[in-house]
């Protein structure tokens, strides 16, 4: 018979054999069991061939996170229900090229002329041409605020943050000032760039989404881009275009407002930066006091440490829409500290 003098290699090349290993059915089981019964001396050989087939697998198995699983699914649902999708799928390449060009053109032109448009250090009177009525949107501790601005831009303000903006955007730009943290999905408008001033950093875009973290007590300002292109720079650097950074998706810009040092991480993992907008607190190697500060903001509580602990210990973890109790328990578990809640105060202490 055909298989009588087969080596392991021959079995590995045989379609009928491989199919039996991968997808055994009544027919192939019948055949191979019968053949093995007639050729018992071949049992070991066949077992080994089987074993090799069954043990072959990818060396690198990169699995999606739950968040990624949901993110992609949500995008599919969102995009497929939009009526323009069919056109978009076909024209997207062209559209992207054109859009990129326009954004770049827009940004460069604007950077060149920006000082005529905005007086740098004065964050409130950002639109100087007209005399617009300014308004302020702010959040207290424990609050988050989502809003859609007049131009269609979506903004989600994190706790204890403030956004200043004109009641109506002018015809040539859309300028706002931010203190604290916010996530932006800027509506596309190539004729009116969107400009954010935040703690000495100027961020300029045409239509894109990104996160800015610039709380007053920290010297660090972070800009994380989730889509599109974003132009950032230290405001003190004035007109000089070469001093600005063009950020793309997944780029993270970090600015130190004390030393005025700027740093850009290209194509990095920025999911932690934007997780807050989905109600997720994420830490990677964070100091306890930084975690406390965020928890105070999110849950509107005061935390105090009754016994001194090491200021150098780093903590990692995440809380997905968890209650204050849950978060405190998590911290307690990791740090080995106990806690008690009195009114709106949380006390951590060593037992």
């Amino acid at each position, binding site marked *: 018979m055909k298989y009588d003098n087969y080596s*392991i290699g021959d079995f590995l090349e045989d*379609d009928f054999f491989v199919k039996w290993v991968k997808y055994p059915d009544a027919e192939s089981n019948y055949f191979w069991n019968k053949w093995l019964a007639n050729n018992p001396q071949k049992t070991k050989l066949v077992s080994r061939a089987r*074993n090799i087939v069954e043990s*072959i697998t990818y060396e690198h198995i*990169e699995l999606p996170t739950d968040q990624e*699983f949901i993110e992609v699914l949500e995008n599919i649902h969102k995009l497929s229900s939009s009526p323009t999708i069919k056109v978009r799928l076909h024209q997207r390449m062209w559209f992207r090229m054109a859009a990129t060009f326009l954004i770049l053109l827009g940004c460069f032109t604007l950077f060149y002329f920006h000082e005529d448009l905005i007086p740098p250090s004065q964050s409130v009177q950002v639109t100087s041409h007209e005399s617009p009525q300014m308004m302020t949107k702010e959040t207290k501790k424990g609050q988050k605020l989502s809003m859609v601005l007049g131009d269609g831009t979506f903004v989600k303000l994190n706790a204890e943050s403030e956004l200043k903006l004109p009641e109506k955007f002018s015809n040539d730009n859309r300028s706002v000032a931010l203190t604290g943290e916010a996530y932006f999905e800027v509506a596309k408008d190539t004729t009116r760039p969107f400009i954010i001033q935040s703690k000495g950093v100027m961020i300029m875009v045409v239509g894109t989404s990104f996160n800015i973290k610039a709380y007053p007590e920290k010297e660090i300002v972070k800009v994380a881009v989730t889509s599109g292109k974003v132009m950032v720079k230290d405001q003190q650097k004035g007109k000089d275009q070469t001093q600005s950074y063009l950020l793309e998706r997944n780029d993270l810009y970090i600015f130190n407002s004390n030393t005025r040092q700027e740093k850009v991480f290209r194509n990095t993992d920025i999911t932690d930066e934007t997780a807050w907008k989905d109600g997720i607190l994420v830490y990677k190697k964070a100091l306890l006091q930084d975690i406390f500060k965020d928890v105070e903001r999110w849950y509107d509580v005061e935390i105090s440490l009754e016994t001194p602990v090491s200021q150098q210990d780093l903590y990692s973890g*995440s809380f997905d829409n968890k209650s204050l109790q849950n978060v405190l328990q998590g911290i307690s578990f990791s740090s080995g500290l106990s806690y008690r809640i009195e009114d709106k105060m949380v006390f951590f202490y060593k037992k």
Partner: protein
Amino acid sequence: MKVLNQQNLSIEKRLFAKSISLYESKGDAEIWEDFKNGNGEAFNYIYCHYFPILFVYGHQFSKNRELIKDLIQDLFLNIKVNRKKLGPTLSIKFYLFKSFRRMIIKKKAKLTDFSYDDYGKDFDFEITLSHERNLIEDQKQKELKEKLEKAINSLTKKQKEIIIYYYYEGFTYKQIASIMGFSKTEYARKLIYRSVEALKKQFPEKDLLIMLLVTKPFAN
């Protein structure tokens, strides 16, 4: 470093218990037909079954997570929007792999001038021999296993790719030829043949015979 977050059930099982129980035991032709008729549960089933598989597969071509996610998104978006125009299929996995591979190759060709060096060398279908069923304790066997792994990974990129399709993903020669864009099924058969021959040269039959001595009983 301590991770605080705990999740026991996979997200698919938590979110799509209904879709899974509805379609788990059904054949591809039927699932596909339901999906084409606009059945949302069928779409969910396809998504939650194939998203992780395509994710792992895509990473063999590029380590860029965002790129892979974008392409999977485009793929599902495409079939969802155009579902009425799609033909029938007996293997959803084959259909998705074929479309997905074409998209990745196209995309990667366009990305040549971008700097993707940050990710280092691509995985390029590197292969390992798992031994979850057979605990190899014997030193000699361990060495042989490593030797065989080395031999497999010294094959060309295309050879490793086809080995994965054939032995791991379980595609037929005909499907593989179509996925890899060969004009004839025969080429897929030849490529497997050449790969195994190359292994044989590096790896004498007697070594293969000693390997993986602990065998598992046949399943039937």
